């Protein structure tokens, strides 16, 4: 078997089998990315790379490829370009993949994308020319063969491509079989949706283990009670356990000093996620952790502790 080519730090650590920590950056509705760059700088010492979201929930923000280029240039943090198939057809996406190479972006996460109906431009045409599996296939075609539709690309793109998975999915088997399709298409890593249910997560990760794609577990450390409650209420299909909500509520009401409160939240996150990750690591179900706690960079030193050992 030919040695796997490595195009990025993420690709390198995955190839070495080192445990990976990735972060997430979510641009706001602004063309000024200085806050995003600042957040990227704060997480940079702790993560291998960070995802940059592509108008999540169909709410329009700056193009994720542009944001990746700025973050890499100004924060020196490697990016995982989130690319949905929602807004651009196959031809356009192929052009963007070439653009990514020209901008020095070497990781892409293939996503379906939330329907425009969900967001703030519902009148927009939903494209979905590709889907999350066939986008993986397209990237691999362009990277591996250096061509597209059998036409050579003079300087082909060099990207690692990953996909998403949802361990909370019900029916779970349908989701697991879909991951099989992504694996067949050539996905090099999987990042999961946020998880809180350990038993369900184990069942799902065991079901997709046969596909042999490294899995980064999606964690969402909660910065405050308001965030925990909001996440529970507004993210469909993900329930924050009641005991967590109660604990976070307790921190909010019982601790008045802001600094002490922050410390209590950070510790509570550590206390919940440490055994969770430890057990999954012991079962050899994880290649890493993907932390989706946006605007919460101070949690990263704690997360490094979570994944240690």
């Amino acid at each position: 078997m030919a040695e796997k080519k490595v195009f990025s730090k993420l690709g390198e650590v995955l190839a070495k089998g080192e445990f990976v920590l990735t972060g997430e950056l979510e641009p706001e509705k602004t063309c000024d990315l200085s806050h995003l760059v600042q957040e990227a700088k704060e997480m940079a010492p702790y993560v291998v790379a960070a995802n940059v979201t592509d108008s999540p929930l169909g709410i329009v923000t700056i193009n994720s490829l542009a944001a990746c280029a700025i973050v890499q240039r100004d924060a020196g943090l490697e990016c995982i370009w989130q690319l949905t198939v929602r807004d651009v057809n196959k031809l356009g996406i192929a052009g963007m993949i070439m653009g990514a190479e020209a901008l020095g972006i070497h990781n892409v996460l293939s996503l379906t994308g939330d329907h425009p109906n969900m967001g703030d431009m519902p009148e927009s045409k939903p494209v979905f020319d590709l889907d999350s599996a066939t986008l993986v296939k397209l990237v691999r075609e362009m990277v591996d063969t250096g061509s597209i539709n059998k036409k050579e690309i003079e300087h082909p793109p060099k990207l690692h491509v990953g996909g998403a998975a949802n361990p909370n999915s019900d029916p779970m088997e349908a989701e697991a079989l879909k991951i099989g399709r992504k694996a067949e298409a050539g996905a090099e890593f999987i990042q999961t949706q946020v998880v809180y249910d350990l038993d369900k997560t184990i069942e799902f990760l065991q079901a997709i283990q046969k596909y042999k794609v490294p899995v980064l577990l999606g964690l969402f450390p909660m910065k405050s009670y308001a965030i925990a409650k909001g996440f529970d209420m507004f993210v469909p299909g993900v329930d924050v356990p009641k005991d967590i909500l109660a604990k976070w509520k307790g921190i909010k009401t019982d601790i008045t000093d802001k600094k002490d409160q922050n410390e209590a939240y950070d510790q509570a996150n550590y206390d919940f996620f440490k055994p969770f990750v430890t057990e999954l690591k012991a079962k050899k179900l994880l290649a890493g952790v993907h932390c989706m706690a946006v605007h919460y960079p101070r949690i990263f030193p704690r997360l490094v502790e979570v994944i240690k050992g």
Partner: protein
Amino acid sequence: MTIITTKKPFEEILGAIKDFKKITIVSCNSCAAMCQTGGEEGAKEMAEKLEGQGFSVVSVIVPEEVCDNRVMLKDFRKIDEDLNNTDAILTLSCGLGVASIINTLEKNHPNIPVFIGTNTEFMGMTERIGRFYMRCRGCGDCLLNETGGICPITTCAKSLMNGPCGGMVKGKCEVGNYERDCGWVLIYERLKQLGRLDLFSKLRDPVDWSESGHQREVVWR
């Protein structure tokens, strides 16, 4: 199969025909009658409404199928004199009716503008009158043999070839506030029932748009 139509708001129809006085109504007695947008009753209702607004209804015909040029040639022949006296035609049919009328009047009455009083919704399956469902989009490249007879192009809100997507929660779709079934979960359940999850596991290529989407025709003689 029925082409499902709904009524356009009357104000919108008035806006479209406001510059004309003498109107001929063509009301389809097939699908539109079933959808209660056309037929005898639809024609009568529209004629009364238009007259109430000061229009002169020159002629009303209720052809069996407005979309069939042959039917329309025959029926228009019967009202040729009325057509000479018609400023505009209002059809209560699907969009195909408009095309068919323009086609059949091309020779003798090419200058009569044709307006439509309905919105064409989709090609529908009828559960009973008043309950019509889109289950096929007529994409020209039928996948049903591989998806347990459930069309992903139609039932998946994103027309994905490899679903379900992350917008599925407990078998429901994010589009429409989780009230409608996820098409890909329906396909999964059906294929599971048939013992054909091997088909569900298959990685499918994107739709090939090179042959479709533009003025499709089936011409075999």
